């Protein structure tokens, strides 16, 4: 029998052996998954430890050991009175409670080949009630379906109840919005309240993510993609003014993901290369990247939420651009490009019918293709007259589209996408402060990238190093000969100055690694 304290319990996809409560009731069976939620449920019942059978130990023996005390028959003293009735293995009554042990009792037992007798422990010690309740709670969790909660209920409630300042209807009219922007000398948006990034967990100190955490992330991402499909569908349907509740849900999920595990959020959400569902994957990527960058720029919760709304809706104008233009393999004709340039105005037009959108949304949708040096569209505005949130979403848009495969080119690596952003800063097309904020949380070799190090080992980036963009935290995937390691080994390159990155690779160029999308995390 092995006793495992609750603090030692770790989530597992498939338990090697059963876990029993001290009442002998199995809480989980071999092969069951043990999730974070279950561990929390065990703690909630005030249970301090659980028990597991040793390799050869029978479950029945373990149960008896837990619920009974044993006594060698040599220890039986004739004349002692029994506090409880004694039965044999088959339930036959041997001696009634209160009876004195007769002299011949021990002898007759040993004649029957019995060397030990068992007394059941008192009920308050066994705790059958707690055991049953625990089992039923665990069953409840098992039947509750996929985990989709990334933060505790309280935090989620806070996210849901964030107040946003609604947009003026006139701002969704491209001409009126343009006139308003033309009259401004600069568009400011300073961080105001408590920075959202204070809530974000520092995963660099947390060790590898648990299986249940990873599952929860992939479930939430799938759910958000489904919600985005609904949102884009609802927007395409026309009709009168309406509110689309899924917009808030997707924003909350992205923010909850950021709080729980920035790296997993970026890994699962920022680079989903889905050619057939490009606009949806791209909308999710823009949302995830924008909230990440926005948090690095110290915006508060309400501002981050507005940014998330704008990011997920920024691409909606493209739904009005004919697919033969959007997916054209050859260079666009001036007429076709004019159609693309009109997409921000189409976007405003579509969103005009949606209620409860924050004031920043029209600026984001209309200006996210402007470039800091005036080379963008639709108006060719320069840095100071581009809304900061539109600049953030613009950076997210470029990054995500470079990482996506399009009919006219293959997907590039995340490193190449980051490189493009930095080169665009050099050309003053992008605002350097925004790209720097992205570098700080995603590194020059972005989270999830595959690398070759100068000692020839393959590695994967698992977290950025905010002080040195070239030295992220990595999971080592292979030895120096390229032989994959069974378990990736975490290593902080900041603490290993002798190591540097010599190559950024696509996943397919790293030989022999498993196809687990979250490998190394």
């Amino acid at each position, binding site marked *: 029998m092995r006793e495992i304290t609750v603090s030692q319990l770790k989530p597992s996809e498939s338990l090697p052996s059963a876990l029993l409560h001290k009442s002998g009731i199995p809480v989980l069976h071999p092969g069951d998954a043990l999730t974070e939620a279950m561990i929390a449920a065990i703690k909630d019942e005030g249970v301090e430890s659980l028990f597991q059978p040793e390799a050869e130990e029978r479950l029945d023996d373990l149960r008896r050991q837990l619920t009974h005390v044993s006594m060698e028959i040599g220890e039986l003293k004739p004349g002692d009175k029994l506090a409880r009735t004694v039965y044999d293995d088959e339930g036959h009554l041997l001696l009634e409670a209160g009876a004195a042990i007769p002299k011949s009792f021990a002898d007759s037992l040993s004649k029957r080949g019995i060397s030990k007798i068992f007394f059941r422990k008192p009920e308050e010690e066994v705790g059958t009630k707690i055991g049953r309740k625990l089992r039923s709670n665990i069953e409840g969790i098992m039947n509750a379906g996929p985990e989709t909660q990334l933060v505790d209920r309280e935090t989620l409630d806070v996210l849901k109840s964030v107040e946003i300042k609604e947009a003026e209807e006139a701002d969704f009219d491209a001409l009126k919005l343009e006139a308003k922007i033309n009259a401004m000398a600069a568009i400011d948006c300073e961080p105001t309240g408590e920075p959202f990034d204070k809530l974000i967990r520092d995963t660099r100190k947390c060790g590898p993510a648990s299986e249940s955490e990873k599952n929860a992330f992939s479930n939430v991402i799938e759910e958000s993609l489904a919600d985005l499909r609904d949102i884009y569908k609802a927007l395409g349907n026309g009709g009168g003014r309406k509110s689309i509740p899924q917009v808030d849900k997707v924003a909350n999920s992205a923010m909850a993901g950021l709080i729980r595990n920035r790296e997993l959020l970026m890994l699962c959400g920022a680079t989903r290369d889905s050619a057939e569902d490009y606009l949806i994957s791209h909308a999710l990527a823009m949302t995830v990247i924008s909230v990440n960058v926005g948090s690095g720029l110290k915006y508060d919760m309400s501002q981050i939420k507005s940014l998330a709304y704008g990011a997920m809706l920024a691409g909606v104008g493209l739904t009005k651009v004919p697919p033969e233009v959007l997916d054209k393999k050859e260079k666009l004709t001036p007429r076709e490009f004019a159609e693309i340039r009109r997409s921000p105005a189409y976007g405003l037009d579509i969103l005009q019918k949606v209620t409860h959108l924050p004031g920043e949304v029209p600026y984001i949708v209309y200006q996210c293709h402007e470039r800091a040096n005036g080379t963008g569209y639709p108006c060719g505005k320069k840095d100071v007259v581009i809304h900061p949130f539109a600049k953030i979403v613009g950076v997210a848009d470029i990054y995500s589209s470079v990482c996506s495969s399009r009919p006219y080119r293959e997907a590039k690596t995340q490193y190449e996408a980051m*490189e493009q952003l*930095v*080169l665009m800063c*050099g050309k003053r097309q992008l605002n350097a402060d925004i790209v720097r904020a992205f570098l700080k949380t995603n590194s020059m070799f972005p989270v999830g990238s595959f690398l070759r190090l100068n000692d020839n080992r393959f590695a994967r980036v698992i977290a950025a190093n905010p002080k040195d963009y*070239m030295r992220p935290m990595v999971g080592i995937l292979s030895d120096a000969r390229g032989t994959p390691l069974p378990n990736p080994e975490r290593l902080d390159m900041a603490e290993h100055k002798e190591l540097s990155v010599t190559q950024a690779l696509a996943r397919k160029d790293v030989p022999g690694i498993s196809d687990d999308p979250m490998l190394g995390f």
Partner: protein
Amino acid sequence: MKLEGKKILVADDEKRVAELLSIFLTSKGAEVITAIDGADAFRQATLHNPDLIMLDLNMPGTNGMEAIRSLRMTMSDKPILVLTGYCTAETFESALEAGATVCMGKPPKLAELTEVVERLLAGAADA
């Protein structure tokens, strides 16, 4: 030799210039990596971690000035030596403003170049 074992990145779209610089620096014991334009220079600098970057300003695609600004985003303390045919005060000033450490006219006098390179490498080692 002060250049021995040092890694130097030379970025020039004129192959002949890059080759000559490369031969000269190699003869002094340095390891030389070459790049053909600003974007290439940025990538080579990121993946080879050179001790010194030598850049021409006038290159196609991403020019030297743009490359310096990009390099300064990710590597703040690496010495960048600009070699340019446009030796005006204005050009030098904007290159320094972009983040170059030193600017020199092209073609450089080899003795002078050696001295500057050695000084920059020594300074980087101090830092």
